[in-house]
């Protein structure tokens, strides 16, 4: 499977105000970002297109 789809860095959710993050804090962000960067499953595309037609 393609595990190489991770270089889609979206310039968002940067928080400059965290001066003293513990070491794992970056891991937490990456946990979140790893899901954000997943390709969207078809079920969501289907649902979103249905929203349109339901209108």
């Amino acid at each position: 499977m393609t595990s190489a789809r991770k270089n889609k860095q979206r310039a968002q959710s940067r928080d400059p105000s965290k001066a003293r993050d513990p070491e794992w804090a970056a891991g937490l962000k990456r946990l979140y970002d790893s899901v954000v960067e997943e390709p969207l499953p078809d079920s969501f595309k289907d649902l979103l297109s249905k929203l349109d037609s339901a209108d």
Partner: protein
Amino acid sequence: MSENAEPAKPLPPRSADDKRAFKRELTDVVPHLRAFARGLCGRPDMADDLVQETLLKAWAAQERFEPGTSMRAWTFVILRNAYLTDMRRNRFRGDYDETVAERVLTAPAGQEEPIHLSDMHRALLTLPPERREALLLVGAGGFSYEEAANICGCAVGTIKSRVGRARAALTTMIEEGSIPERSLTDPAAHRAILEELDEVAAGNGRAVATR
């Protein structure tokens, strides 16, 4: 004068352009909803169900969205409420993501030992839900304390305290390597969490002492 159950803030009717803009913003925010949901409830399939439910609710409630405000914050509130409702119906068991468990979170070159995503996620899921969501919003989602407080319907100080406690707990677990195995599948722990959820859902946001 008859009383209609009107929303507190009547907004102007939506044009086709507004609807298109809403749809576009809603689409853009889906990956974030998935990430937030995954952090909250652990299992990817259930998290995605939760996001689908959220999208339908958001679409149905689009008249209440104020253009120009944060779609991410608005939909997170909907997702959070749906999660709390489902959690109380015992749909989620707090299982963690088995597929993620195999992945290693590799630190950039030159940094310390990598943290396993699975460790991170499991540690996160052992936190009481209100601390978990606070940490997710601020520490992962990049929301300010103020935004997180709005999403959770509580005071800024409450969010700060929850994030602080969550951080302290995670730091202890991760640095000491004392991340519990699957503690959420323990019925007693699960029950305690459900009790806390009632508190959280009631909106008073008081952290219940769990002992």
